[in-house]
Structures are given as C-alpha cells and as structure tokens.
C-alpha cells in the first residue's frame, strides 16, 4: 500500500508542477494577483508532496518491502538500518527522486525567502523551476519509477546494496552534491526571469548572488566528500580520477565559480550583464548535461548507473527543450541588456574578466576532454581515451595564471589603478613565497621543478591574503580594529581564496612527495618502507553484520618510535559474495599513513600496500575553507539589511540599500 501512496503523491506533484510551470508565466505577464499567489502555494505543496513520496520510498526500504523492485534490487534484510535508508538514493531511480526532492526543496525555499522581491520576478522564477520539475518528475514516473512492484514472484530477500556504497560516504555525498547541482537551478531561473523582463540591474545580481553562493557551497563540499570517499574506500590512495562522472560534477562547479565572480562584478559595477546571464544558464545546463552523461549510458564510467537508451533519449529531449529554450531567450533578449563598461585594463573588472575567461576555458577543456572520445568515434569510428595525463597537464596550464592573478585581482581597485605602484607592494611577498616554497620542497624530499612551482603558487595566494590583512590592520589603531573593518563579504573572499591555496598545496605536495610501496610480508615480520618500519603482528577473522572479514594488524614505526597501529580488512559480503578491501588510515594534518590488505601469496605471506601521503588532508581542508568563505560572504550585512528593510516602505528600501551598497564597497577598497 505504501508504495502506491508514494506513486500517487508523485503523480499529484506532477500535475501541480504542470500548472506551476505554465500558469506562473501567465500570472507574471498579466500581473494577475491570484495566479502569482498560486505559484507560491503550488511550489510549497509540490515540495510537501514529493517529500511525502520520498518518505514512502524510505519506509519501503525500512520495512524490507521486497515486492518493490527497486528495494529488492538494492537492499537486503541483513543491511543495517542507516544503510537501508541511504540505499534509497543508492541507485538510479531513488537518486532521481532525491534529485526531484531537492529541486522542489529549493523551489519552496525561493517561495519562502523571496518576500522582498518583486512578485512578477519571483513568479517567473518559480515558473521556470516548476517547468524543470515537470521534466524530472515525468522522467521519474515514466522511465524510472522507484515504486514499481515485482509481481507475482516476490523475492524472499533483496539482492543487497553494492558493498562499495555501504559506507558513510553514500549517506552524505549524494545529497550534498545534488544540493549543489540542483541549487544552480535557482540562479538559472533568476537569469531566465531577468532576461524575460529584459532587465538585469544590480538588484537582480544582488538577489541572485546568495542563492548561487549557497549552491556553490554545497557543490564544493559535495565534490570534496566524493573525493575523500573515493580516497579511503577504493583502496588505491587516489582522490581524483578525471572519470566522466567526476568531470560531470566538476564542470558545473567550475562554471559556478566563474559565475560567483562575474555576479560580483555585475552587482558592484553593472558590467558583464549578458555574460553573467549566459554563465548562469550554462552552469545549470552543465548540471543537466552531467545528469544526461551519468544516466544515459553514452559514456562508460565506473560510477554510472545501469543504463537504458530510453532514459537517455528522454533526458536528452528534456535537456534540449530546457537549455534550447533558455539559449533562445538569451539570443533574443540579450541585445536589450545594457552593460556599463567604464573600466581600464588594470582594474578589478579586467581581473574578474580574466578569472572568468580562464575558468570558462578550463570548463571547456574538461568538457572537450570528456566528450572527445565520442566526437572522435563519430568522425573516425575508432575508440580513443582521454585520461588523467591530459587533464592534469591542461588543468595545470590554466591554473598557473589563475593563481598568479588571484592575489592581485582581489586587491586591485575597481575601474582603474596604476599598475606599477600596485605591483611594487607585492615584491616582498612574491620573493618570500618563492623562498619559503624552496624550503618546503627541500624538506619534503628534494627539488622537483613542478612541485616548486606549485608550492610557490599556493604560498603566493596565501601571501596575498596575508598582505591584505596586514595592510588593513596597519592602517588601524589596533590589529583587532583593523580586522573588524574588513567587511564580511571581503572576509568571505579571503577565506575562500585561502581555501584554494590550501587545496593547491595539498594537491601539489601529495602528488610529488607521496610514497607508495607494495610489499610482501609474513605475520611476525617487519619490513622497511623508506623511513617507516612496518610490522605485521596479528591476523584475525571476524564477523560483521552482513559480511565476514579478515583483518591484519600492523604497527608502523619511524626511527623505532611507534607512530600508529593499523587494521586493514578484506571483507566478503554475505548476500553478494563480493570481496571488498577496507583500507586503514592513520590520518594527520601533515601526512596520512594508509595500509591496504592485498591477497595472500603462495608462501604464507601477504601482499600489502603501504602509502605515505603528505598533506593529502589539505585537499579537502581547502574545500572546507572555500565553503566557509561562501558562508561568510552570504552573512554579509547587505543581505541581512534587506530582510530588516522589508518592513519599511518600498521606496525607502531602494534608496537605503543603495546607500548600504556604498558603505560596504568602501570596506573593499
């Protein structure tokens, strides 16, 4: 009964969404009061309906209702409760429902938190999102219904969730990532609504900014979580593989990062308006493209869902309609948008322009590399591959100028600033980053050219943030007073850039100075791996809730001093009979020690892998800083001010917020 209720709720939501996705535009166009009110209510009710439907699917999992095909294929009575719940989004159908849930969640959030916005604009925004919801609910209902039953032969037990997914990572990574993916639909809808009304003023940019930033925060964390998960779960110490599915999430992130920067310029200076709108469209289009690539089977990937060409066609048609229509609107309306362009070559505007150009080119590069095998096949009929060697090289080429420009771009004035006196202030910082990098690289194990370049750039970005903070505090009476003078949104930018530096340092140092050794070891034996001694002192077979496990115990010494005691496992899952390795990691701020059990060898010894990964945590730590930066930026008083203002009269509000804009800009000089 519960699955039928879920299905029914889904259908109800579908019908609601159809009304929302059509009537809203009529309502906004005619400024019909009832219709505009309807769009808000419909948004909320769709969210509630989908939420209830999602709860129904979750209940089917909790109750082990194996008459539901999706549950039977992805769960098992032995599966612990928390994995039964996260198994809801462990495969295609359920994860699609999660996608829809999050989309409608964003929609409801827009409906609730947009009281200060002009009503026709909000109505259009909700209309666009409702239209997207129609497509995705239809996709769920007609091609991938998670509530389908398996009659008449109901399996006694389910075939289990893929053991790789029986992990904390599955609980947090997909919801986080989808929050980001789908969150970009808000700014997309804002862009369409803005283009439809033919005006993208700085108010438009100000409304769009926090939504974009929030989506970007989720996306940054989602990607980092995925990377961290792959790192500890897959057992070969890698954290990024340039797999098509990873690229599918990385492209919207890159475009979204560019969007955050161009929105800043659009809000503050009224420049790049049409480009910002286009970028908003492209960012969400890349999210949709990612969904297509992952779920259509057009590319192979270790992560991709079970594929079906019908689904591929459905998504492609929908993608074509949504993106095609929005680009058409852009083509028609963008000429009406007037941008200011009163800035010189050496100005914050130009710096942001380069930031956008570089990020856009990197996005293009990732897209090209991902699709190139397909293009190649279409023209030559042969299969080819584009993998990490290409992406790493190309990504590095474009990251170098981005990082070089970052500290300068964040501190150059708007409009125009003489370049020579500005650069003169950076010399000492630049030289000290080179020297410090040299020291770091030598301590880490020797001068590798690229490692030196990368470390220098990472430190250079850190130096840029430090330079600004010192500059500000020097002007003030006391250090703390100086810090307080920096506005929240500027702090946000500094912290996010700090995060970039931390990630860069982590990537560079772990890539160049990791130690990776496969060794043969017998119980009781001690083997030397570079500076570490590895002692294999115990071996046990144990039983988990739904698996049996063989665990080795290893003590790791450095200079006869015990550093850590690790217990990597090999698990065999009862239902699927799959064998999984569970690495054990001693995590540290400056290094990880990572041990993986391999296979028993003929002579009673085991093959194990020992990894020493310096600074690997910094990769993910950096993204936490980036997210924190985003949080600081949206907590800026400009946005809080707006909420207080809404009680006042509308006229007063517009003049006031202009004045606010000026004061907060002053903090950015």
């Amino acid at each position: 009964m519960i699955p039928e209720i879920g299905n029914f709720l889904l259908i109800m939501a579908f019908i609601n969404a159809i009304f929302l996705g059509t009537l809203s535009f009529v309502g906004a166009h005619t400024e019909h009061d009832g219709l505009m009110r309807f769009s808000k209510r419909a948004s909320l009710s769709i969210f509630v309906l989908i939420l209830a439907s999602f709860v129904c699917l979750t209940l089917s999992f909790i109750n082990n209702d194996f008459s539901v095909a999706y549950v039977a294929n992805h769960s098992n009575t032995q599966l612990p409760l928390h994995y039964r719940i996260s198994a809801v989004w462990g495969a295609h159908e359920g994860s699609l429902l999660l996608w829809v849930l999050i989309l409608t969640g964003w929609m409801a959030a827009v409906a609730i938190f947009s009281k200060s916005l002009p009503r026709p604009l909000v109505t259009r925004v909700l209309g666009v999102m409702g239209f997207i919801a129609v497509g995705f609910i239809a996709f769920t209902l007609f091609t991938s219904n998670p509530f389908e039953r398996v009659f008449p032969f109901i399996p006694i037990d389910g075939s289990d969730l893929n053991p790789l997914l029986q992990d904390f990572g599955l609980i947090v990574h997909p919801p986080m990532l989808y929050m980001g993916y789908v969150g970009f639909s808000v700014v997309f809808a804002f862009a369409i609504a803005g283009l439809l009304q033919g005006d993208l003023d700085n108010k438009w940019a100000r409304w769009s900014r926090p939504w974009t930033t929030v989506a970007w925060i989720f996306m940054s964390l989602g990607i980092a979580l995925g990377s961290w998960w792959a790192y500890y779960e897959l057992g070969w110490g890698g954290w990024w593989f340039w797999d098509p599915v990873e690229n599918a999430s990385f492209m919207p992130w890159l475009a979204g990062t560019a969007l955050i920067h161009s929105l800043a310029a659009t809000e503050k200076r009224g420049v790049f308006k049409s480009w910002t709108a286009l970028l908003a469209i492209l960012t969400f289009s890349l999210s949709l493209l990612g969904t297509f690539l992952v779920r259509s089977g057009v590319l192979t990937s270790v992560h991709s869902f079970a594929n079906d060409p019908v689904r591929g066609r459905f998504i492609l048609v929908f993608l074509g309609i949504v993106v095609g229509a929005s680009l058409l609107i852009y083509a028609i309306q963008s000429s009406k948008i007037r941008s200011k362009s009163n800035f010189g070559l050496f100005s914050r505007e130009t710096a942001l322009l380069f930031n956008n150009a570089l990020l856009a080119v990197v996005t293009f590069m990732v897209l090209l590399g991902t699709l190139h095998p397909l293009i190649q096949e279409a023209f030559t009929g042969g299969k080819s591959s584009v993998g990490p060697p290409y992406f790493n090289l190309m990504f590095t080429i474009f990251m170098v100028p981005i990082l070089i420009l970052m500290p300068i771009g964040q501190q150059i004035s708007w409009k125009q600033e003489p370049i020579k006196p500005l650069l003169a202030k950076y010399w000492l910082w630049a030289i000290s980053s080179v020297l410090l990098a040299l020291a770091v690289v030598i301590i880490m194990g020797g001068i590798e050219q690229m490692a030196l370049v990368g470390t220098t750039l990472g430190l250079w970005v850190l130096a840029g943030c430090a330079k600004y903070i010192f500059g500000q505090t020097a002007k003030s009476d006391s250090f703390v007073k100086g810090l307080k003078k920096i506005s929240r949104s500027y702090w946000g930018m500094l912290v996010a850039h700090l995060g970039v530096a931390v990630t860069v340092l982590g990537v560079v140092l772990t890539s160049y100075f990791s130690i990776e050794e496969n060794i043969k070891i017998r119980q009781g034996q001690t083997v030397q791996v570079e500076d570490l001694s590895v002692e294999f002192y115990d071996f046990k077979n144990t039983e988990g809730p739904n698996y049996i496990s063989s665990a080795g115990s290893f003590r790791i010494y450095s200079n006869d001093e015990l550093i850590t005691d690790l217990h990597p496992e090999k698990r065999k899952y009862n239902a699927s009979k799959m064998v999984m390795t569970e690495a054990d990691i001693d995590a540290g701020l400056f290094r990880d020690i990572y041990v993986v059990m391999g296979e028993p060898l003929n002579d009673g010894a085991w093959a194990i892998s020992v990894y020493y990964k310096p600074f690997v945590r910094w990769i993910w730590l950096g993204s936490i800083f980036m997210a924190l930066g985003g949080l600081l930026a949206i907590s800026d008083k400009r946005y809080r001010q707006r909420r207080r203002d809404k009680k006042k009269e509308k006229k007063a509000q517009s003049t006031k917020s202009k004045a606010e804009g000026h004061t907060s800009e002053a903090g950015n000089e």
Partner: protein
Amino acid sequence: MNKKLVLAIAPIITFIALVVFFWFALEKDPKKLNSNLIDKPVPEFKLPALKNPELVYTSESLPTELFLLNVWGSWCGPCHIEHPYLMKFSRQYSVPIIGVNYKDKTIDGLEFIESKGNPYSMIIADQSGQFGIDLGVYGAPETFIVDSAGNIRFRYVGVIDDRVWSTKIQPAVEAIQGKPLDKVAESPSAVTQN
C-alpha cells in the same frame, strides 16, 4: 552590431549541434572496442595443440582459405552459451572454425570439448594468454574472420548466436569472399575430426 548578433546566437547553435550529436551517440555501445588488427595478418605464434601438446602450431598451420578464429575458455560463462551455436554452425557450413583455448588449463579445455562436442577444426592452446594479447583480445568469447590471404578482416566480441550469425558474421564473410557461404553437403561428423 553584427558581432553582437553572432555572440547572441553562437551558444544556441553550438548547443543544437551538441544535442544532435548526442542523439546519434546514444545508439552506440561504448563498451565495444574495434580491433586494431583489421587488415593486418594474424600475429605470429608458436603454440601447442590442445589435444596433443607435442604438436606445435605456427601461423603456417592456419588454413589458406577464409576461416573463423574463435577465442574461448572453459572458465568463461558466455562461452558456454555460445558453444551450442558454434556446434550448429560447424555442422551447417563448411567454413573452418579455429579455436584458441585462451588462458585455460589443458585439462579443463579438453573436458569442455569432450563433454560438449568439438566445433573446431583445430584448437590452439594459449595458456599464457600472450597470443590473446597479441590479438587484442579483451573479453572472451571473441571471433575473428581471417581471409584467404591470412589477414584479419572482422572481429566480433561477445556471444555468437543465430541473430549475430545472420546479421553480422554471415554478411561479413560473404562480403569478404564475394560469394555465399558454402553449406555442408556431407554428413556432419566429418567436421569433428581433427
């Protein structure tokens, strides 16, 4: 003004091209690889016969007429599905089928043939898998069509059943040799002699 128009229209044109392109890409199976050996001779090899380890086969031992080269192993599930079809085709048509027993234990390979019948006119035992690698084999069963000049002309990866035979293999063979496949006239038992 003109430039502005171009910038406004360029995104949608590019996008439409991309969608059309994806539409056609959806039809293809991304997992199937083309052989890199098309129009090249069968790689050199020197391997024993499965049934008689004393007997050594080389490239010279291969037929001088068009033949099929089928890579299989007793460990490979799909090969068990394919086997009855190969038996049937070997009875129906006179085209020789050469087997490559790939990465198999001799005893298992022999067991397989003895219990299920032998569709092959000769079986090359490739225990180490080196010949398979030289052939670019990535998943058994794989079937190559080799022409009378000894060049590989076609490869099929996967199980050959009636449908695959009539839609892929037979047309390919007939296109290569320029005439219809010869049917076996005499009694089918002739084929199983080795």
